[in-house]
């Protein structure tokens, strides 16, 4: 069964149509990359999938792990195993990263009918997972994303993903604002999480990230539609030629 099945998805933001018929299927173990120029609808896609209310699905169907996402509230999608690594992770003052994560992990476990983790088990899990993205202890104790640098925020997103062990990881321009070292650490983290039963949707503007997270499939998103799909070599092609030909074509 497909992990994510997007059929003719239309969506708008503030009544403006952005996505105009997306079709995409991700199977467990696959990594799909979506590339596209600014304003093509990349972030809209990730937000619609995750259930952000500011983004309205107007037509089509999305099945996540066999369930229609219309039947699931945002937190239920998360609990069912969909994880979105945010392009701009938000700050929550006064709540430590650890406290936040413990609440999140236990909310997900509760939904999945698993026992709640006590403090000791949780700490063991943190010790285990923090190696994946080499996150510093002081960041764990600080308030969620408060005073984090851009790179630390992204690293924290991947750390949270490791802790929540989703079925599908959506990375929304995780590479934006990262220098090459941070990019490598984040990519190594994602690669460590790749597994036969987990899928990824990697959304990016640049080919650069895909040097480190090598995708199985690449899709080009322009003006709210997938205009071309192919293997990893498509990303290289785009690097050489840019998006200009599609944008012009469509714009004409």
């Amino acid at each position, binding site marked *: 069964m497909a992990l994510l099945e997007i059929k003719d998805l239309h969506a708008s933001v503030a009544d403006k149509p952005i996505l105009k018929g997306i079709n995409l299927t991700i199977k467990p173990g696959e990594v799909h990359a979506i590339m596209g120029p600014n304003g093509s609808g990349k972030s809209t896609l990730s937000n619609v999938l*995750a*259930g*952000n*209310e*500011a983004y309205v699905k107007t037509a089509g169907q999305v099945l996540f792990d066999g369930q229609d996402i219309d039947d699931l*509230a*945002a*937190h239920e*999608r*998360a*609990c069912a195993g969909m*994880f*979105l690594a*945010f392009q701009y*992770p*938000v700050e*929550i*003052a*006064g*709540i430590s990263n650890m406290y*936040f*994560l413990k*609440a*999140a*992990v236990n*909310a*997900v476990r509760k*939904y999945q009918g698993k026992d709640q983790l006590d403090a000791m088990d949780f700490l063991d899990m943190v010790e285990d997972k923090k190696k994946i993205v080499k996150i510093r202890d002081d960041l764990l104790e600080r*308030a969620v994303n408060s005073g984090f640098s851009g790179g630390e925020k992204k690293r924290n997103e991947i750390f*949270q993903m490791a802790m*929540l062990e989703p079925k599908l990881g959506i990375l929304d321009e995780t590479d934006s604002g990262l220098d090459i070292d941070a990019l490598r650490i984040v990519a190594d983290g994602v690669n460590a999480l790749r597994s036969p039963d987990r899928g990824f949707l990697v959304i990016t503007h640049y080919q650069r990230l895909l040097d480190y997270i090598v995708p199985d499939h690449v899709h080009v998103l322009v003006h709210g539609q997938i205009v071309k799909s192919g293997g990893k070599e498509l990303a290289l092609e785009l690097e050489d030629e840019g998006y200009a030909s599609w944008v012009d074509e469509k714009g004409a």
Partner: protein
Amino acid sequence: MKIEDEKSFDELTDKEYKYGFVTDIESDSLPPGLNEDIVRAISKRKNEPEWLTEFRLKAYRHWLTLEEPKWAKVEFPPVDYQALSYYSAPKQKIDAPKSLDDVDPELLATYEKLGIPLGEQEVLAGVANVAVDAVFDSVSVATTFKKNLEELGIIFGSFSEAVKDHPELVKKYLGTVVPYKDNYYATLNSAVFSDGSFCYIPKGVKCPMELSTYFRINAANTGQFERTLLIADDDAKVSYLEGCTAPQRDENQLHAAVVELVAHENAQIKYSTVQNWYPGDKDGKGGIYNFVTKRGHCRGNNSKISWTQVETGSAITWKYPSCILKGDNSVGEFYSVAVTNNLQQADTGTKMIHIGKNTKSTIISKGISAGKAQNSYRGMVKVVETAENARNFSQCDSMLIGDQCGAHTFPYIDVSNPTAQVEHEATTTKIGEDQIFYCNQRGLDTEEAVTMIVNGFCKEVFRELPMEFAVEAQKLLGISLEGSVG
């Protein structure tokens, strides 16, 4: 997602105030109305000495000349003071219970239901290290751990008992912090106050346990007017907790208490309140009018008084716990969280009056409004001529949930000494949809998300509360804000 929100809103409207039950108990009440005879009758019922009867009468006569204050940003229909009963006491088989065994089981059951440990066994078993004075309507029904405290010379119990057993102390301090002429509600309280807690910590004693008073209004159409007097003598130290609930009734009920704190040289008083009076229903029907005067007097040098309050209940809150910093180097602190939802109104804050040299004060206020509620911070920092090198830091943060509520800040700063340093910071934030979505995306539902974000917002205040209270306060916050987003 919309469906989900509507569901949570329904859950809110179905949600009952957990403490809204009524205890079926026979009461000894005075008829409604207020006049000199009623004042005398209250005093007589309590077998008070003449000086106290006179204190009440003076207050009553002064009250007749006053008008209700109108400056607060709250609106309510006029209170009919003649329709209220000013005294209600649960009928006891004997006059004053000597031990818990003598207390009406119905009353004990009430406190058990409220989760207040009156059985000392429970406490000894490690449930909590707290001595409790339980006030039911107009009288104190039980005080725990009296003996243990007496061994240290600590006097803790009902105000009425203190009048009988330690009249000299009561006479010496009563009305010295909040004079009977102070304000409309304090004056009314001075005339008709029924009971409350009295506490005296002798010189050099650090009170080994938390002292706590638990106020419960039960009877209908009864005003509750308690009076708390707490004195920490030289080098003494005490932490005091106060909790309150009331049954769910359709009529508004008046609560006009007075709290006076006195800190002598090097003494420290920490006073924490979790106020959870019935707030009224979602249409604003019923609920407590909470018009309270609380003031602390740092009388001695190097003394310290710290107020921490978490205000989640009441239809209307009108309350300004204050510090008079008379002693040199004395310190006043005010930490407050005020939550208003639905049609609740709160006008609350503090006054810090700097008189002594090198006096310091800190004000941290967090106001949270949801629904159609109005939440105002009103605070005064006054530095008089004698207060060399006075320091104040104030921070007032407001958080709005939804777009139909209001947050207001009214800071008054009055400085008469050029060496003073007064800082005021204020922020207003709207709880962010993006923050809620971020939490949703990590598996937390919207209510959990709001509770978490608001708890984070209030953290600086919660960490001032004693441990058990902090946990309780966080839970309360969740309940108070249920269904506020949608």
